[in-house]
């Protein structure tokens, strides 16, 4: 009860005090005190406000820097992702171009073909062999010609597994392809690999007239290999009077290290 009375007293006192203060304010008696207080505290408030502002600005600078760094990182990630996308798109476009060229080539020549992707090279690196992702299941057989671009022969199937095959490239020293030069006399010979460094056309009679830059194509004398597939062009001719045959160095139009997709001709439709 005493506590309640005390509280009531306090309430009454504070209400009276507030009314008095408001009254004194409105009759301007409090004004000098208020003005003095504002005058005294204003400089302190100004200094502390400026200090807080400075600290706040520093914090904002730091935060902005942090945000910029984060944004920069995000943009870099975005660029990386876009580059990856672009690379994928380019590779898909390349693949698409290749497929459409092969399709038109095969359709024009009435070939039954199989597109395969290069999935590796031979493991021992002693042979110039590539591994492709199609095999017996796709109807491939040893000896079938493999092309890298429209009619550009790059090798022959050497070994066939269920789902992959080994392709012996024409520049391997084990490779032998019956060929002919597209000159007036349709000179025939054998293209042999030169340990992965290039190709030589051998068994060309001395009497044949050859020219550099003549195109060399398959002769069609081999089983499974149709005639007219481009092998390369003559780079240089070696003609020794004492030899029975002359030789020609052949330069391929294909970079054997950059073959990604191949077209394997399975035969005529």
């Amino acid at each position: 009860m005493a506590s309640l009375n005390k509280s009531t007293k306090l309430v009454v006192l504070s209400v009276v005090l507030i009314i008095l203060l408001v009254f004194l304010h409105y009759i301007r008696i409090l004004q000098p005190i208020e003005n003095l207080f504002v005058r005294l505290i204003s400089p302190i408030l100004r200094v502390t406000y400026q200090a807080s502002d400075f600290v706040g600005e520093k914090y904002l600078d730091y935060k902005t820097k942090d945000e910029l760094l984060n944004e920069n990182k995000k943009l870099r990630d975005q660029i990386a992702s876009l580059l990856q996308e672009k690379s994928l798109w380019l590779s898909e476009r390349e693949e698409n171009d290749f497929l459409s060229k092969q399709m038109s080539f095969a359709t024009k020549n009435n070939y039954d073909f199989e597109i395969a992707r290069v999935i590796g090279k031979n493991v021992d690196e002693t042979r110039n062999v590539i591994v492709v992702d199609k095999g017996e299941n796709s109807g491939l057989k040893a000896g079938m010609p493999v092309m890298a671009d429209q009619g550009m022969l790059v090798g022959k199937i050497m070994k066939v597994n269920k789902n992959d095959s080994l392709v012996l490239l024409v520049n391997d020293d084990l490779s032998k392809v019956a060929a002919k030069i597209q000159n007036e006399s349709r000179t025939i010979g054998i293209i042999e690999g030169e340990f992965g460094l290039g190709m030589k056309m051998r068994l060309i009679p001395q009497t044949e007239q050859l020219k550099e830059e003549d195109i060399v194509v398959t002769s069609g004398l081999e089983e499974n290999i149709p005639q007219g597939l481009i092998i390369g062009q003559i780079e240089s001719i070696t003609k020794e009077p004492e030899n029975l045959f002359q030789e020609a160095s052949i330069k391929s139009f294909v970079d054997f290290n950059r073959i990604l997709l191949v077209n394997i001709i399975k035969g005529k439709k």
Partner: protein
Amino acid sequence: MLKAIRIILLTLLLIISELSIVPKLPSVMSHLGPIIVFLVFVAVVYQFYQAVIWAIILGLMMESFSVFPFGTMIIGYVITIYICYFVFVHLFTNKSFYTLIIMTILGTVVFRTMIIVFQYLIDFIHLGSLVLDGQILINSARETAWQVLFNVILVIIIYTVFHHSSRRFKAVFIDTIKNN
């Protein structure tokens, strides 16, 4: 004399922090209300009448920097303290850490609500009609929630500092944190 200097310094510190430090705090932290935290702390930990005196003094000083008509801040602070005290006396049996937190939440909500009501009343007097915009009310509620959060954090910090530095303070509270 020393006590008087201490009171003046404390008053200045509260006014300065409320007017020039807190508003420059980053983002939502600028909703912190050190004066209301202080008043509730005094009302709960020390004497109720002391809190009323502080409310009148601080309210009077804040009036000079307030956009409201003279008396609004004093009335706001004093009524807040009275409501907190009323709830404290009728609903709580003793002083504890949790009481202090609940009183801080209550004090913050009551004071903010009163300020919003005053604002609407002044607008009503000036415009002659009451404009109740949903978005403004949602924003006010959001700001109140932030203020409650930061005020509670502040009171926890003050409590922890006092708890570890004053034996008298420990004696006032029942220890609700100690493990048995």
